[in-house]
Protein backbone atom coordinates (compact mmCIF):
# COMPACT_ATOMS: atom_id res chain seq x y z
CA UNK A 1 0.00 0.00 0.00
CA UNK A 2 1.40 3.33 -1.04
CA UNK A 3 0.43 5.08 2.17
CA UNK A 4 2.62 2.71 4.17
CA UNK A 5 5.92 3.96 2.76
CA UNK A 6 7.14 4.90 6.22
CA UNK A 7 7.29 1.23 7.06
CA UNK A 8 10.12 0.49 4.64
CA UNK A 9 12.74 1.45 7.18
CA UNK A 10 11.57 -1.06 9.73
CA UNK A 11 14.88 -2.94 9.92
CA UNK A 12 16.63 0.20 11.05
CA UNK A 13 14.31 0.59 13.96
CA UNK A 14 15.73 1.19 17.42
CA UNK A 15 14.01 -0.06 20.59
CA UNK A 16 10.58 1.29 21.25
CA UNK A 17 10.40 4.33 23.46
CA UNK A 18 7.88 4.73 26.23
CA UNK A 19 4.92 6.95 25.54
CA UNK A 20 5.69 10.62 25.89
CA UNK A 21 3.96 12.39 28.75
CA UNK A 22 2.95 15.15 26.41
CA UNK A 23 1.68 13.05 23.55
CA UNK A 24 -0.32 10.15 24.89
CA UNK A 25 -0.47 7.08 22.73
CA UNK A 26 2.36 8.03 20.41
CA UNK A 27 5.75 6.39 20.29
CA UNK A 28 8.37 4.90 18.00
CA UNK A 29 11.75 6.31 17.13
CA UNK A 30 14.37 5.14 14.70
CA UNK A 31 17.59 6.19 13.00
CA UNK A 32 17.77 6.75 9.29
CA UNK A 33 21.10 7.66 7.73
CA UNK A 34 22.34 8.90 11.07
CA UNK A 35 19.38 11.20 11.64
CA UNK A 36 16.89 10.47 14.37
CA UNK A 37 13.41 10.39 12.86
CA UNK A 38 10.41 10.25 15.09
CA UNK A 39 7.82 7.86 13.76
CA UNK A 40 4.63 8.52 15.59
CA UNK A 41 2.52 5.49 16.19
CA UNK A 42 -0.95 6.32 17.36
CA UNK A 43 -2.22 4.19 20.22
CA UNK A 44 1.10 2.32 20.00
CA UNK A 45 0.41 0.07 23.00
CA UNK A 46 -2.78 -1.28 21.46
CA UNK A 47 -1.44 -3.04 18.37
CA UNK A 48 1.44 -4.79 16.63
CA UNK A 49 2.47 -4.51 13.03
CA UNK A 50 2.89 -7.90 11.37
CA UNK A 51 3.88 -6.91 7.84
CA UNK A 52 3.68 -3.95 5.52
CA UNK A 53 -0.10 -3.92 5.58
CA UNK A 54 -1.07 -6.35 8.29
CA UNK A 55 -1.56 -5.60 11.95
CA UNK A 56 -3.13 -7.23 14.98
CA UNK A 57 -4.89 -5.52 17.86
CA UNK A 58 -4.04 -6.24 21.49
CA UNK A 59 -6.65 -6.66 24.20
CA UNK A 60 -6.21 -7.09 27.90
CA UNK A 61 -7.49 -10.30 29.47
CA UNK A 62 -7.67 -10.48 33.23
CA UNK A 63 -5.97 -13.57 34.69
CA UNK A 64 -8.28 -13.45 37.72
CA UNK A 65 -11.74 -12.97 36.20
CA UNK A 66 -11.29 -13.34 32.45
CA UNK A 67 -12.61 -9.86 31.57
CA UNK A 68 -11.44 -8.67 28.16
CA UNK A 69 -11.04 -5.05 27.10
CA UNK A 70 -9.94 -3.06 24.11
CA UNK A 71 -7.92 -0.97 24.44
CA UNK A 72 -5.93 -2.95 27.01
CA UNK A 73 -6.36 -1.39 30.44
CA UNK A 74 -3.98 -0.92 33.37
CA UNK A 75 -6.49 -2.27 35.85
CA UNK A 76 -9.17 -4.86 35.19
CA UNK A 77 -12.40 -2.80 35.41
CA UNK A 78 -14.17 -5.85 36.79
CA UNK A 79 -11.88 -6.80 39.72
CA UNK A 80 -9.09 -4.16 39.75
CA UNK A 81 -6.35 -6.76 39.20
CA UNK A 82 -3.26 -4.88 37.98
CA UNK A 83 -1.76 -5.14 34.51
CA UNK A 84 -4.01 -7.77 32.96
CA UNK A 85 -2.23 -9.88 30.35
CA UNK A 86 -2.14 -8.51 26.79
CA UNK A 87 -3.28 -10.91 24.11
CA UNK A 88 -3.58 -10.72 20.35
CA UNK A 89 -7.10 -10.45 18.97
CA UNK A 90 -8.43 -12.00 15.78
CA UNK A 91 -7.38 -10.08 12.70
CA UNK A 92 -10.81 -10.35 11.08
CA UNK A 93 -13.90 -8.58 12.33
CA UNK A 94 -17.39 -7.57 11.18
CA UNK A 95 -18.26 -4.01 10.23
CA UNK A 96 -20.90 -2.77 12.72
CA UNK A 97 -21.36 0.69 11.24
CA UNK A 98 -19.43 3.38 9.37
CA UNK A 99 -19.48 6.96 8.18
CA UNK A 100 -17.51 9.23 5.87
CA UNK A 101 -16.32 12.29 7.81
CA UNK A 102 -16.22 15.68 6.10
CA UNK A 103 -15.39 17.80 9.18
CA UNK A 104 -12.04 16.32 10.17
CA UNK A 105 -10.27 15.96 13.46
CA UNK A 106 -7.26 18.30 13.36
CA UNK A 107 -4.75 15.51 12.67
CA UNK A 108 -6.47 14.42 9.49
CA UNK A 109 -7.73 15.79 6.22
CA UNK A 110 -11.26 15.14 5.01
CA UNK A 111 -12.90 13.15 3.80
CA UNK A 112 -11.99 9.98 5.65
CA UNK A 113 -14.01 6.93 6.60
CA UNK A 114 -14.45 5.71 10.16
CA UNK A 115 -16.20 2.66 11.50
CA UNK A 116 -16.82 0.30 14.37
CA UNK A 117 -15.67 -3.30 13.94
CA UNK A 118 -16.95 -6.19 16.05
CA UNK A 119 -14.39 -8.89 16.87
CA UNK A 120 -14.99 -12.53 17.84
CA UNK A 121 -13.48 -11.75 21.26
CA UNK A 122 -16.67 -9.80 22.02
CA UNK A 123 -15.05 -6.41 21.61
CA UNK A 124 -15.97 -3.46 19.39
CA UNK A 125 -13.14 -1.30 18.04
CA UNK A 126 -13.22 2.13 16.40
CA UNK A 127 -10.85 2.94 13.56
CA UNK A 128 -10.45 4.44 10.16
CA UNK A 129 -11.32 2.36 7.14
CA UNK A 130 -9.42 2.37 3.86
CA UNK A 131 -11.87 1.45 1.12
CA UNK A 132 -14.17 2.89 -1.48
CA UNK A 133 -17.05 4.26 0.52
CA UNK A 134 -19.56 2.82 -1.93
CA UNK A 135 -18.16 -0.70 -1.38
CA UNK A 136 -18.83 -0.69 2.35
CA UNK A 137 -21.73 -2.63 3.81
CA UNK A 138 -22.77 -3.21 7.39
CA UNK A 139 -21.97 -6.81 8.26
CA UNK A 140 -19.05 -7.24 5.84
CA UNK A 141 -15.76 -8.77 7.00
CA UNK A 142 -12.85 -6.43 7.47
CA UNK A 143 -9.19 -7.09 8.32
CA UNK A 144 -6.89 -5.19 10.66
CA UNK A 145 -4.31 -3.31 8.65
CA UNK A 146 -1.77 -0.48 8.98
CA UNK A 147 -2.24 2.99 7.59
CA UNK A 148 0.02 5.97 7.40
CA UNK A 149 -1.49 9.42 7.69
CA UNK A 150 0.44 12.39 6.38
CA UNK A 151 3.70 12.47 4.45
CA UNK A 152 7.39 11.81 5.16
CA UNK A 153 8.56 12.79 8.61
CA UNK A 154 5.09 14.07 9.42
CA UNK A 155 3.66 10.61 8.88
CA UNK A 156 1.73 8.89 11.62
CA UNK A 157 1.14 5.15 11.70
CA UNK A 158 -2.04 3.64 13.03
CA UNK A 159 -4.10 0.51 12.76
CA UNK A 160 -6.99 0.70 10.35
CA UNK A 161 -9.42 -1.66 8.69
CA UNK A 162 -9.73 -2.79 5.07
CA UNK A 163 -12.31 -5.01 3.35
CA UNK A 164 -11.14 -8.56 4.03
CA UNK A 165 -11.40 -9.83 0.46
CA UNK A 166 -9.00 -7.18 -0.74
CA UNK A 167 -6.08 -8.37 1.38
Amino acid at each position, binding site marked *: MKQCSVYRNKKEAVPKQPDSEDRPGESGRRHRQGVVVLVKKLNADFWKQLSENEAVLLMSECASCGKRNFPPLRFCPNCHAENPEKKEMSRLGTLY*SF*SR*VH*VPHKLYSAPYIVGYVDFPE*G*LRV*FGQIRANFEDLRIGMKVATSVCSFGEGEEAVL*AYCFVPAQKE
Partner: protein
Amino acid sequence: MARPVYVTGIGMTPFRKKYDITLSELAQEAVVRALRDAGFDRNRVEAVYSGSAWGGPLLGQRILRDLGMTGVPLVNIENACSSGSTALHQGWAAVAQGMYDAVLVIGSEKLSRFGSGALPLEDDDHEVRLGQVMPAVYAMRAQRYFHEYGGTPADLAQVAVKNRRHAGLNENAQFRDPITVEEVLASRPVADPLTLLMCCPKADGAAALLITSERYRNGRSVEVRTSRLTSGVFEDGIVDTTIDEITVRCAKETYESAGIGPEDVDVAEVHDAFASAEVFYYEALGFCKQGEGLNLVRSGATAIGGRIPVNPSGGLLSKGHPLGATGVAQIVEIVEQLRGEAGARQVEGAKVGLTHCTGGGIAGMDHGACTMHVLVR
Protein backbone atom coordinates in the same frame (compact mmCIF):
# COMPACT_ATOMS: atom_id res chain seq x y z
CA MET B 1 -36.90 14.14 53.33
CA ALA B 2 -36.85 16.09 50.12
CA ARG B 3 -39.14 19.14 50.00
CA PRO B 4 -40.72 20.82 46.97
CA VAL B 5 -38.48 22.92 44.74
CA TYR B 6 -39.60 25.64 42.33
CA VAL B 7 -38.28 27.55 39.35
CA THR B 8 -39.27 31.04 40.41
CA GLY B 9 -37.28 33.15 37.93
CA ILE B 10 -36.05 32.55 34.38
CA GLY B 11 -33.79 34.52 32.07
CA MET B 12 -31.82 33.91 28.93
CA THR B 13 -30.02 35.72 26.16
CA PRO B 14 -30.87 35.00 22.56
CA PHE B 15 -28.54 32.31 21.20
CA ARG B 16 -26.42 33.88 18.48
CA LYS B 17 -23.45 32.93 16.32
CA LYS B 18 -21.19 35.46 18.02
CA TYR B 19 -21.49 38.04 20.76
CA ASP B 20 -18.86 40.76 20.93
CA ILE B 21 -18.97 40.85 24.71
CA THR B 22 -17.20 38.58 27.17
CA LEU B 23 -18.73 35.35 28.41
CA SER B 24 -19.17 36.77 31.89
CA GLU B 25 -20.94 39.86 30.50
CA LEU B 26 -23.21 37.61 28.45
CA ALA B 27 -24.09 35.53 31.51
CA GLN B 28 -24.77 38.69 33.55
CA GLU B 29 -27.59 39.52 31.11
CA ALA B 30 -29.25 36.19 31.87
CA VAL B 31 -28.77 36.55 35.64
CA VAL B 32 -30.33 40.01 35.78
CA ARG B 33 -33.27 38.86 33.61
CA ALA B 34 -33.91 35.87 35.91
CA LEU B 35 -33.89 38.03 39.06
CA ARG B 36 -36.17 40.62 37.42
CA ASP B 37 -38.50 37.88 36.19
CA ALA B 38 -38.90 36.74 39.80
CA GLY B 39 -38.89 40.25 41.27
CA PHE B 40 -36.28 38.88 43.64
CA ASP B 41 -33.77 40.76 45.82
CA ARG B 42 -30.27 39.67 44.75
CA ASN B 43 -29.14 39.80 48.41
CA ARG B 44 -31.40 36.89 49.23
CA VAL B 45 -29.60 34.51 46.86
CA GLU B 46 -27.87 32.07 49.21
CA ALA B 47 -25.73 30.02 46.81
CA VAL B 48 -24.79 29.87 43.13
CA TYR B 49 -24.16 26.96 40.74
CA SER B 50 -22.54 27.91 37.43
CA GLY B 51 -22.19 25.41 34.57
CA SER B 52 -20.00 25.78 31.49
CA ALA B 53 -17.89 23.41 29.43
CA TRP B 54 -15.22 25.85 28.26
CA GLY B 55 -15.83 28.81 30.55
CA GLY B 56 -12.44 28.60 32.23
CA PRO B 57 -11.53 28.96 35.90
CA LEU B 58 -13.83 30.78 38.33
CA LEU B 59 -16.43 31.64 35.73
CA GLY B 60 -19.15 32.02 38.37
CA GLN B 61 -17.04 34.52 40.29
CA ARG B 62 -16.29 36.40 37.07
CA ILE B 63 -20.02 36.62 36.31
CA LEU B 64 -21.16 37.71 39.75
CA ARG B 65 -18.33 40.03 40.81
CA ASP B 66 -19.69 42.97 38.83
CA LEU B 67 -23.29 42.30 39.87
CA GLY B 68 -22.60 42.86 43.56
CA MET B 69 -23.45 39.25 44.36
CA THR B 70 -20.29 38.09 46.05
CA GLY B 71 -19.40 36.26 49.23
CA VAL B 72 -21.86 33.39 48.84
CA PRO B 73 -21.11 29.68 48.35
CA LEU B 74 -20.41 29.28 44.63
CA VAL B 75 -19.69 26.09 42.66
CA ASN B 76 -18.32 25.99 39.11
CA ILE B 77 -19.40 22.89 37.22
CA GLU B 78 -18.18 21.16 34.04
CA ASN B 79 -20.05 18.18 32.55
CA ALA B 80 -19.70 18.84 28.80
CA CYS B 81 -23.09 19.53 27.17
CA SER B 82 -24.78 18.73 30.50
CA SER B 83 -22.81 21.35 32.44
CA GLY B 84 -25.77 23.72 32.90
CA SER B 85 -28.30 21.02 33.65
CA THR B 86 -25.86 19.48 36.12
CA ALA B 87 -25.60 22.88 37.83
CA LEU B 88 -29.40 22.85 38.07
CA HIS B 89 -29.36 19.35 39.53
CA GLN B 90 -26.90 20.45 42.22
CA GLY B 91 -28.92 23.57 43.03
CA TRP B 92 -32.14 21.58 43.10
CA ALA B 93 -30.61 19.02 45.48
CA ALA B 94 -29.40 21.73 47.86
CA VAL B 95 -32.86 23.32 48.04
CA ALA B 96 -34.66 19.98 48.22
CA GLN B 97 -32.48 18.91 51.12
CA GLY B 98 -33.13 22.13 53.00
CA MET B 99 -29.67 23.69 52.78
CA TYR B 100 -30.93 26.83 51.05
CA ASP B 101 -34.22 28.56 50.19
CA ALA B 102 -32.97 30.47 47.13
CA VAL B 103 -30.15 29.55 44.76
CA LEU B 104 -29.10 30.88 41.40
CA VAL B 105 -28.29 28.48 38.55
CA ILE B 106 -26.35 29.77 35.55
CA GLY B 107 -25.41 28.09 32.28
CA SER B 108 -23.26 29.93 29.76
CA GLU B 109 -20.92 29.36 26.83
CA LYS B 110 -19.14 31.13 24.01
CA LEU B 111 -18.40 28.68 21.23
CA SER B 112 -17.57 31.41 18.71
CA ARG B 113 -14.02 31.13 20.04
CA PHE B 114 -13.62 27.81 18.20
CA GLY B 115 -14.48 29.03 14.69
CA SER B 116 -16.06 26.54 12.30
CA GLY B 117 -15.95 22.74 12.16
CA ALA B 118 -16.67 20.06 14.73
CA LEU B 119 -15.98 20.84 18.38
CA PRO B 120 -12.52 19.73 19.54
CA LEU B 121 -12.59 16.59 21.70
CA GLU B 122 -9.96 15.47 24.21
CA ASP B 123 -6.94 13.76 22.66
CA ASP B 124 -6.67 11.66 25.84
CA ASP B 125 -9.35 9.57 24.18
CA HIS B 126 -7.96 6.81 21.95
CA GLU B 127 -10.83 7.08 19.46
CA VAL B 128 -10.38 10.83 19.15
CA ARG B 129 -6.70 10.35 18.28
CA LEU B 130 -7.81 8.15 15.38
CA GLY B 131 -10.16 10.77 13.99
CA GLN B 132 -13.38 10.41 15.95
CA VAL B 133 -15.64 13.48 15.91
CA MET B 134 -19.10 13.90 17.46
CA PRO B 135 -20.99 14.03 14.14
CA ALA B 136 -19.44 10.67 13.19
CA VAL B 137 -20.65 9.07 16.43
CA TYR B 138 -24.22 10.06 15.62
CA ALA B 139 -23.81 9.31 11.92
CA MET B 140 -22.73 5.74 12.66
CA ARG B 141 -25.69 5.24 14.99
CA ALA B 142 -27.98 6.60 12.28
CA GLN B 143 -26.45 4.34 9.64
CA ARG B 144 -26.98 1.32 11.90
CA TYR B 145 -30.52 2.46 12.69
CA PHE B 146 -31.36 2.53 8.97
CA HIS B 147 -29.89 -0.98 8.70
CA GLU B 148 -32.00 -2.30 11.59
CA TYR B 149 -35.28 -0.50 11.05
CA GLY B 150 -35.20 1.12 7.61
CA GLY B 151 -35.42 4.82 6.95
CA THR B 152 -33.64 7.39 4.85
CA PRO B 153 -31.83 10.69 5.30
CA ALA B 154 -35.05 12.38 4.12
CA ASP B 155 -36.76 11.04 7.25
CA LEU B 156 -34.06 12.56 9.45
CA ALA B 157 -34.42 15.83 7.56
CA GLN B 158 -38.00 16.06 8.80
CA VAL B 159 -36.72 16.53 12.35
CA ALA B 160 -34.66 19.54 11.24
CA VAL B 161 -37.59 20.97 9.27
CA LYS B 162 -39.95 20.64 12.25
CA ASN B 163 -37.54 22.21 14.73
CA ARG B 164 -36.83 25.07 12.34
CA ARG B 165 -40.56 25.70 12.00
CA HIS B 166 -40.75 25.93 15.80
CA ALA B 167 -37.71 28.24 15.91
CA GLY B 168 -39.51 30.65 13.59
CA LEU B 169 -41.77 31.33 16.57
CA ASN B 170 -38.90 31.86 19.02
CA GLU B 171 -36.96 35.13 19.05
CA ASN B 172 -34.20 33.52 21.09
CA ALA B 173 -33.36 31.03 18.33
CA GLN B 174 -30.32 31.58 16.11
CA PHE B 175 -31.84 30.26 12.86
CA ARG B 176 -35.50 31.08 12.20
CA ASP B 177 -36.09 30.94 8.46
CA PRO B 178 -38.11 27.90 7.39
CA ILE B 179 -36.28 25.09 5.57
CA THR B 180 -37.46 22.19 3.41
CA VAL B 181 -36.48 18.53 3.38
CA GLU B 182 -34.79 19.16 0.02
CA GLU B 183 -32.70 22.00 1.45
CA VAL B 184 -31.65 19.88 4.41
CA LEU B 185 -30.54 17.05 2.12
CA ALA B 186 -28.74 19.46 -0.23
CA SER B 187 -26.76 21.16 2.54
CA ARG B 188 -23.12 20.11 2.67
CA PRO B 189 -22.25 16.69 4.07
CA VAL B 190 -20.80 16.58 7.59
CA ALA B 191 -20.63 12.85 8.36
CA ASP B 192 -22.65 10.63 6.03
CA PRO B 193 -25.65 10.38 6.24
CA LEU B 194 -25.77 13.63 8.27
CA THR B 195 -25.74 16.94 6.42
CA LEU B 196 -25.06 20.38 7.85
CA LEU B 197 -28.70 21.19 8.59
CA MET B 198 -29.05 17.91 10.52
CA CYS B 199 -26.31 19.06 12.93
CA CYS B 200 -26.72 21.66 15.65
CA PRO B 201 -24.86 24.92 15.01
CA LYS B 202 -22.46 26.42 17.50
CA ALA B 203 -23.68 29.43 19.44
CA ASP B 204 -22.90 31.92 22.16
CA GLY B 205 -25.54 32.19 24.87
CA ALA B 206 -26.46 32.17 28.52
CA ALA B 207 -29.45 31.24 30.67
CA ALA B 208 -30.18 31.56 34.39
CA LEU B 209 -32.77 30.29 36.87
CA LEU B 210 -33.78 31.34 40.35
CA ILE B 211 -34.54 28.11 42.21
CA THR B 212 -36.46 28.42 45.47
CA SER B 213 -38.22 26.51 48.18
CA GLU B 214 -41.85 27.13 49.15
CA ARG B 215 -40.64 30.15 51.13
CA TYR B 216 -40.05 32.28 48.03
CA ARG B 217 -42.59 30.66 45.72
CA ASN B 218 -44.78 33.11 43.83
CA GLY B 219 -47.77 32.89 41.50
CA ARG B 220 -45.61 32.19 38.45
CA SER B 221 -43.39 29.57 40.07
CA VAL B 222 -43.24 26.14 38.41
CA GLU B 223 -42.50 23.04 40.48
CA VAL B 224 -39.47 20.90 39.67
CA ARG B 225 -41.08 17.52 40.34
CA THR B 226 -37.83 15.66 39.90
CA SER B 227 -34.22 16.17 38.85
CA ARG B 228 -32.05 13.24 37.80
CA LEU B 229 -28.38 13.11 36.92
CA THR B 230 -26.48 10.03 35.85
CA SER B 231 -23.20 9.21 34.13
CA GLY B 232 -22.29 6.89 31.29
CA VAL B 233 -21.73 3.16 31.71
CA PHE B 234 -18.50 1.83 30.19
CA GLU B 235 -19.12 -0.76 27.51
CA ASP B 236 -16.52 -1.80 24.93
CA GLY B 237 -18.39 -4.95 24.00
CA ILE B 238 -20.92 -5.63 21.29
CA VAL B 239 -24.06 -3.64 22.11
CA ASP B 240 -26.95 -2.11 20.17
CA THR B 241 -26.02 1.54 19.71
CA THR B 242 -29.46 2.39 18.33
CA ILE B 243 -30.67 2.18 21.95
CA ASP B 244 -29.37 5.12 23.97
CA GLU B 245 -28.73 3.19 27.18
CA ILE B 246 -27.95 6.23 29.33
CA THR B 247 -31.21 7.95 28.33
CA VAL B 248 -33.25 4.77 28.83
CA ARG B 249 -31.77 4.38 32.32
CA CYS B 250 -32.15 8.05 33.25
CA ALA B 251 -35.73 8.10 31.91
CA LYS B 252 -36.69 5.10 34.03
CA GLU B 253 -35.35 6.77 37.17
CA THR B 254 -37.00 10.05 36.21
CA TYR B 255 -40.46 8.65 35.56
CA GLU B 256 -40.34 6.56 38.73
CA SER B 257 -39.28 9.42 40.94
CA ALA B 258 -41.80 11.82 39.36
CA GLY B 259 -44.60 9.27 39.59
CA ILE B 260 -45.51 9.72 35.93
CA GLY B 261 -45.10 7.87 32.65
CA PRO B 262 -44.16 9.10 29.19
CA GLU B 263 -47.86 9.32 28.30
CA ASP B 264 -48.28 12.05 30.93
CA VAL B 265 -45.75 14.41 29.32
CA ASP B 266 -47.39 17.35 27.52
CA VAL B 267 -44.25 18.97 26.13
CA ALA B 268 -40.56 18.05 26.01
CA GLU B 269 -37.23 19.66 25.26
CA VAL B 270 -34.75 16.95 24.25
CA HIS B 271 -31.09 16.99 23.28
CA ASP B 272 -31.32 17.14 19.48
CA ALA B 273 -27.62 17.78 18.88
CA PHE B 274 -28.19 15.88 15.64
CA ALA B 275 -31.45 15.08 13.85
CA SER B 276 -30.88 11.36 14.35
CA ALA B 277 -30.43 11.90 18.09
CA GLU B 278 -33.94 13.30 18.48
CA VAL B 279 -35.35 10.16 16.87
CA PHE B 280 -33.38 7.88 19.20
CA TYR B 281 -34.59 9.89 22.18
CA TYR B 282 -38.27 9.57 21.18
CA GLU B 283 -37.72 5.87 21.66
CA ALA B 284 -35.50 6.05 24.73
CA LEU B 285 -37.93 8.41 26.47
CA GLY B 286 -40.86 6.12 25.70
CA PHE B 287 -42.74 8.49 23.38
CA CYS B 288 -42.90 5.57 20.93
CA LYS B 289 -41.63 2.01 20.67
CA GLN B 290 -38.11 1.07 19.60
CA GLY B 291 -37.82 1.36 15.82
CA GLU B 292 -40.84 3.65 15.45
CA GLY B 293 -39.12 7.00 15.94
CA LEU B 294 -39.13 7.93 12.27
CA ASN B 295 -42.85 7.14 12.04
CA LEU B 296 -43.44 9.44 15.00
CA VAL B 297 -41.82 12.43 13.34
CA ARG B 298 -43.47 11.64 9.99
CA SER B 299 -46.87 11.57 11.73
CA GLY B 300 -46.46 15.10 13.03
CA ALA B 301 -46.98 13.96 16.62
CA THR B 302 -43.85 15.77 17.81
CA ALA B 303 -44.72 19.14 16.25
CA ILE B 304 -46.57 21.87 18.15
CA GLY B 305 -50.21 20.83 17.98
CA GLY B 306 -49.29 17.13 17.90
CA ARG B 307 -49.67 14.47 20.57
CA ILE B 308 -46.28 15.08 22.20
CA PRO B 309 -44.61 18.29 20.98
CA VAL B 310 -40.81 17.97 21.15
CA ASN B 311 -38.49 20.97 21.09
CA PRO B 312 -41.04 23.77 20.66
CA SER B 313 -38.13 26.18 21.22
CA GLY B 314 -36.53 25.03 17.97
CA GLY B 315 -34.17 22.70 19.80
CA LEU B 316 -30.41 22.68 19.54
CA LEU B 317 -30.77 22.23 15.78
CA SER B 318 -32.19 25.72 15.27
CA LYS B 319 -31.44 27.59 18.49
CA GLY B 320 -27.80 26.58 18.45
CA HIS B 321 -25.95 24.71 21.17
CA PRO B 322 -23.88 26.84 23.57
CA LEU B 323 -23.07 23.76 25.64
CA GLY B 324 -23.27 25.06 29.19
CA ALA B 325 -26.33 27.19 28.46
CA THR B 326 -28.33 24.50 26.66
CA GLY B 327 -29.71 22.53 29.61
CA VAL B 328 -30.69 25.69 31.48
CA ALA B 329 -32.35 27.21 28.41
CA GLN B 330 -34.42 24.02 28.04
CA ILE B 331 -35.86 24.77 31.48
CA VAL B 332 -36.56 28.38 30.46
CA GLU B 333 -38.62 27.06 27.53
CA ILE B 334 -40.57 24.55 29.62
CA VAL B 335 -41.31 27.13 32.33
CA GLU B 336 -42.67 29.53 29.69
CA GLN B 337 -44.80 26.70 28.28
CA LEU B 338 -46.20 25.74 31.69
CA ARG B 339 -46.85 29.36 32.64
CA GLY B 340 -48.72 29.81 29.36
CA GLU B 341 -46.29 32.55 28.34
CA ALA B 342 -44.85 30.91 25.23
CA GLY B 343 -46.78 33.09 22.80
CA ALA B 344 -47.10 31.78 19.24
CA ARG B 345 -45.38 28.50 20.12
CA GLN B 346 -47.57 27.78 23.14
CA VAL B 347 -48.48 24.11 23.59
CA GLU B 348 -52.12 24.40 24.61
CA GLY B 349 -52.92 23.24 28.12
CA ALA B 350 -49.38 22.08 28.93
CA LYS B 351 -49.22 20.96 32.58
CA VAL B 352 -46.29 18.51 32.61
CA GLY B 353 -43.00 19.29 30.88
CA LEU B 354 -39.83 17.24 30.52
CA THR B 355 -36.25 18.20 29.70
CA HIS B 356 -33.48 15.84 28.62
CA CYS B 357 -29.86 16.86 28.20
CA THR B 358 -26.97 14.48 27.49
CA GLY B 359 -23.33 15.37 27.78
CA GLY B 360 -20.27 14.64 25.82
CA GLY B 361 -18.59 12.05 23.66
CA ILE B 362 -16.24 9.56 25.26
CA ALA B 363 -15.05 6.21 23.94
CA GLY B 364 -17.00 3.28 25.36
CA MET B 365 -19.99 5.31 26.56
CA ASP B 366 -23.22 6.51 24.95
CA HIS B 367 -22.54 9.88 26.56
CA GLY B 368 -20.60 11.08 29.57
CA ALA B 369 -23.65 12.37 31.39
CA CYS B 370 -27.43 12.57 31.19
CA THR B 371 -29.80 14.85 33.07
CA MET B 372 -33.57 14.90 33.06
CA HIS B 373 -36.08 17.18 34.76
CA VAL B 374 -39.85 17.01 35.13
CA LEU B 375 -41.66 20.31 35.72
CA VAL B 376 -45.35 20.56 36.63
CA ARG B 377 -47.86 23.32 37.10
